[in-house]
C-alpha cells in the first residue's frame, strides 16, 4: 500500500497544487529528503537551519504528532498516512 502525504496550502506551489502526494517507507527524515528530491525547496520550509523541525510546523503520522513519537526518526511504513500542518490558533 502506498503512503500518502497531505500537503498544506502554503506548500502546494511546490507540488503543482496537488493536495496529496505519494512517498516511500522509511522515516520522517527520509520522507523529507524524498519530498526535497521531488519538489526542490520544500525541505527548507519545514526544517530550520538547526536541522530540527521548524517550531510552527506539525507533522502527523497516522494522526499522531511526531513530537509524541520519535520526532524526525519516527518510522513510516506502507499504508501510513502523513499530514503536514501549520500550527493553528486556538479557541
Amino acid at each position: 500500500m502506498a503512503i500518502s502525504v497531505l500537503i498544506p496550502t502554503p506548500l502546494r506551489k511546490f507540488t503543482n497544487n496537488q493536495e496529496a502526494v505519494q512517498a516511500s517507507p522509511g522515516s520522517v527524515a527520509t520522507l523529507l529528503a524524498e519530498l526535497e528530491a521531488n519538489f526542490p525547496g520544500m525541505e527548507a520550509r519545514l526544517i530550520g537551519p538547526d536541522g530540527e523541525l521548524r517550531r510552527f510546523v506539525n507533522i502527523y503520522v497516522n494522526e499522531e504528532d511526531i513530537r509524541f513519537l520519535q520526532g524526525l526518526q519516527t518510522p513510516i511504513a506502507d499504508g501510513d498516512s502523513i499530514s503536514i500542518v501549520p500550527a493553528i490558533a486556538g479557541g
Partner: protein
Amino acid sequence: MPKTLGMRCRECGEEYPLSPIHVCELCFGPLEVIMNWEEIAPRVSRKSIQAGPPSMWRYHDLLPVEGPPCVGHNVGFTPLVKAERLGKKLGLNNLYIKNDAVNHPTLSFKDRVVATALTKAREFGFDTVACASTGNLANSVAAHAAEGGFKAYIFIPSDLEQGKVLGTLVYGANVLAVKGNYDEVNRLCAEAGGKYGWAFVNITLRPYYGDGSKTFGYEIAEQLGWRAPDHIVVPCAGGSLISKIYKGLNEMNRLGLLENGVPTRMYAAQATGCSPITTAIQTNAEVFRPQKPNTIAKSIAIGNPADGYVAMDTVRKSAGWAADVTDDEVIEGIKLLGSTEGIFTETAGGVTVMVTKKLAEQGRFGADDLVVIAITGNGLKTQEAVQGHLGAPVLIQPNLDALDQALQTDKLLQVV
C-alpha cells in the same frame, strides 16, 4: 488611505499583501496585520475614543478592518470590577477583575475576536464561516454568523460540556462533534483548510481574529483612567490572548494615550493537566513540549498551542511569570470568585483566580500594586465542573417552624 497595509510574519519578517492567509509560506510562522500608523495616529485621541460607542468598536480605528462592523455591534466594554473582598483574601489592596464572563452576546472574550473576524470575512467576500473550538469560540461564531446571515460550520471535540453544545446549536449552526481532543479537531480543520471555501476564523482569518483581543487590553487601560496596570494574569490556551492584551497596551502607549507607559508584567495561567506554556516558562525552557490535555478546564485544554512561543515571549519580555493549578484548585477558584465577588466564572476563570493566589503567595505582587485578573468566560456554560462540589439547597416545608429548624443547621450558619 487604508488603515491596514499588509501582513508580516512574526517569525521571519516576510511580508504579504492583505488576504485570507494565516501562516508564512517560508517558515509557517504566524502572520500579523501591518497597521498604517501614520494614517491612524493623528485621528486617535482619548477624546475620539470616549466619543465612540460603549463597546469594543470605540477602538475601531485600531482594529484590522476597513469598514464598519457587520456583526457584534455591542461586544465588549465589559465591567472592570474592583475586587475588594477577593483582594482581602489574597492580600492585594488594588485587585481588579476584567469581567468578560458578561460579554455580549455569548458571555466570553471570544465575542471580541469573532466580531472582528466576521467583519473581515464579509470584507473578503466570504458567505460561510467555520471554526475549530473548545466551546466559547463555537458559541460566538454561531451567534454572530446568525446575526450576519453567514452559513456556519462549527467543529468541537465530542466530549464538550452540554452548555457549550446547546449554546452553539441554538443559533442554527451546523455542528460537527469530532471524536478526539481539541488538538485533533484543530488538525482536521487545518487539513480541511481552504478545501470548501469557508472562512475558518481561527485559521483563514487568524491574523484579523487575533487582533480583536487587543480590545481587552485597551479597555483595561481606559477603565483604569488611561493607566496600564502593574500586573495582568491571563489564562492561556492557544496563547494568543496574553500577547494581544500586551500588544494593545503598547499600542495605546505609542499613541500617547497612557499616563504611565507600560510597566505591566504579564502572567500566564494554565491548568496543570494542560500546561505546555507555563511549564516552559517555569523551567526557563526555550521550546515548549506539547502535551495530551487532561483537565476539567476544557476551554483552555490545548496541548499544542499555536501561539505558545508568542505567549512565552510576552511573559519574558514583560518580566512576568507563570503558574498552573490542579483541577481541585480550579473548582476552589470558581467558588472563591463566586463567594467573594458574586461573579460566576467558567473553569478557565477558576484557573486564573487560583494562579493569581499562587503568584501572590510567591510574593510576586506588592500589596498596593495594581493587579488585574482576566476573567474570560461564564460559569453557566461549564456547570458539570462544579456539580457535586457546591452542596445542595436545604429542602424545607412551607412553614415557619420548618424554617426556624432549618436555620439551626450548621449549613445555613456558614458565612464565607
